[in-house]
């Protein structure tokens, strides 16, 4: 065997490794794997999924994996919209938690009317959901208008609804806490009788599929990225940056409405001050964990969604281990900082460079080690 033959596979291998390691999806996938291994090490039944019955006598699947998929749904759905807003506007919407409260409150107002605990729902659920969609999109449009027309920093613009949103939500229901009487309403955050998989998982998959189709059959991705990277240039190519930013916020508004449906449905009621609290930070983190630059431009939607699940996986894991309540935020922060650090575009670049150097040094030394390497190959 000649020297070149042994050098080639080693190099090829390193090239592949480098490509894999510096890929945007690498860190979120690695994080998921590590979390899975840690969980598995402490709990051999971690991947076990059992079929049981709930208190209404309907079949339901349960197990840690199902729990993660279930509870991560809202963040994943929000991550879709947040990714677009981040890419187009180069900033984040910090009002999504508050707008979930608004959309959820509007939904309950339609379902319950003015009576906080009616005997039957006052309007079909679909009507309530559509109203919530309109309300969510209106909030998105409000934010979007401030950002696109008035050129206000996204974080400042969305600060308005962030501050006032929960009060508005309370005002929609005259400060009462309605409880939805119809058990059907609980299907969206729980399960549909006969289907053992939690509905939020289906809703999340539907949203991801719709987004995939939109990205495939429209130019939303290309336009959004162009606007985010170079607004002036995009404009000279016939793209309307104002419209694209506005649309991104409206899409996020729609995601908010869907997330609100799940959130409110989970407990069939609402608490204006704590519903979806801090979820905007989770969604923004999902975008960052996916390795997307928070300053906008290029994005990878799937990495963001994966990022949302990394975060949920982490939350569930921390709940699983008996970590003292007061220490919980510190643990979360440490892991998140590590993940965000490694998935930052700059750091990925550096890691990629490191591998290239390694490759070169192996290329040089492989001549000496050729004999051993060829044995290994055989």
């Amino acid at each position, binding site marked *: 065997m000649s020297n070149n033959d042994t050098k080639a596979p080693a190099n090829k291998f390193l090239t592949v490794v480098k490509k894999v390691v510096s890929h945007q999806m690498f860190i979120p996938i690695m994080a998921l794997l590590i979390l899975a291994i840690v969980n598995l090490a402490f*709990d051999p*039944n971690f991947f076990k999924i059992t079929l*049981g*019955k*709930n*208190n*209404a006598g309907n079949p*339901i699947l*349960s*197990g*840690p994996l199902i*729990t993660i998929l279930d*509870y991560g749904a809202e963040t994943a759905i929000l991550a879709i919209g947040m990714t677009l807003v981040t890419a187009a506007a180069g900033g984040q919407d910090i009002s999504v938690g508050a707008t979930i409260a608004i959309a959820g409150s509007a939904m309950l107002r339609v379902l319950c009317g003015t009576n*906080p*605990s009616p005997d039957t729902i006052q309007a079909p659920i679909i009507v309530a959901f559509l109203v919530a969609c309109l309300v969510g999109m209106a909030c998105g449009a409000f934010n979007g208008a*401030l950002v696109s027309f*008035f050129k*206000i920093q996204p974080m*400042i*613009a969305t600060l*308005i*609804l962030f*501050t*006032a*949103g*929960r*009060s*508005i939500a*309370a*005002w929609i229901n*005259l*400060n009462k*806490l309605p*409880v939805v009487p119809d058990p059907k309403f609980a299907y969206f955050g*729980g*399960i549909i009788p006969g289907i053992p998989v*939690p509905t939020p998982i289906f809703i999340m998959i539907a949203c991801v599929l719709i987004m995939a189709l939109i990205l495939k059959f429209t130019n939303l991705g290309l336009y959004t990225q162009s606007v985010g990277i170079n607004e002036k240039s995009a404009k000279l190519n016939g793209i309307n940056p104002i419209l694209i930013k506005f649309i991104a916020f409206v899409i996020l508004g729609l995601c908010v409405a869907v997330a609100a449906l799940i*959130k409110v449905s*989970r*407990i069939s*009621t609402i*608490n*204006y*001050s*704590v*519903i979806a*609290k801090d979820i905007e930070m989770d969604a923004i983190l999902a975008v960052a964990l996916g390795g997307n630059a928070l300053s906008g431009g290029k994005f990878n939607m799937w990495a963001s969604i994966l990022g949302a699940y990394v975060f949920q996986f982490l*939350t*569930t894991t921390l*709940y*699983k281990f*008996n*970590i*003292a*309540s*007061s220490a*919980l935020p510190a643990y979360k922060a440490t892991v998140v900082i590590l993940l965000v650090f490694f998935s930052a575009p700059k750091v990925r670049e550096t890691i990629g460079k490191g591998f290239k150097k390694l490759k070169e040094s192996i290329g040089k030394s492989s001549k000496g080690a050729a004999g051993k390497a060829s044995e290994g190959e055989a």
Partner: protein
Amino acid sequence: MKKVVALIMTACVAFGLMACSNSDKKDTTAANNETEAAGKDTEKAGGDEGGGSSDLIKVGIINNDPNESGYRTANDADLQKMFCKENGYDASFAYSLKNDEQIKYAQGFIQDEVDYLLLSAADTAGWDTVLQDAKNAGVKVILFDRTIDADPSLYEASIVSDMDKEGETAVNWLAGQGLSEYNVIHIQGVMGSAAQQGRSGALDKKVEAEANWNIVKQQTAEWNAEKAQQIVQSVIDSGTSFNVIYAENDDMAKGAVAALDAAGISHGVGKDVIVMGFDCNKWALEELLKQNWNYDGQCNPFQASYIDAIIKDLEAGKTPEKTIIMDEKGFDAATITQADVDNYGI
């Protein structure tokens, strides 16, 4: 251009806040206006037409934002009901979750020469100067719901809930259930809050003292139903057995129950798991009535009658007690009645 935008934004925030504070209390303004832009402090309550009559007792009430929680909403409604013209009061209300704004409102009330200043402080510190001013101006101060770090001579009386007692009442009730073993999932509120400390403290003490009391899981859900649901779900997923859920408020108990329902675990009177909550929301008491939950501890928001009594005493020249601890009930699903739900539900 920047200025115009800033103005629009200010107007938006102002509008948003005004809108919600005007909703169900048309007689009050001075919302916790972040923006100074509105520039006005407080307005007379109870309509201006009768504002001038001298036989009314003039009170200024500073409270936290009623939107903060159901507890606060009930508290505010109770105060609104009590301090009206029919009961001989000329009351003005001001709301803020921020201490410095509350202090500003207090100064406004002192200038307005109110007879009494009723205060639920956002923060315990920083009140000495303004309360001294009040004393100098002859304004009598009554604290409700929250205490402050100030010389007791600066206020007439303080009406508070004893959170430790709330916890003890609940834990004693639980001990009275006579289970052979207590395996408790303990869902905590926001760490460090007075309610969390009081309600956690009693349980922690009991668990330490008794051999057959165990904490299966102790975790904060930050008053949030969905987080509580996730925490209980994680216990169910891990296969650990438990027979008590001790949630430090109703929302979290509801979230916990949602997880039990999904997993097919029975709960309530005579069932596998005992469910305990706090705050006595109307819907929570209804759950008790339906025997789905077992216990709900009260955190009494109805302080108006206590304050009224103190003012009556002071007007009559009597000196009230400095610290008054309110009666707080614990409701048992076995004994609760529809009347309890109507009277005590918030």
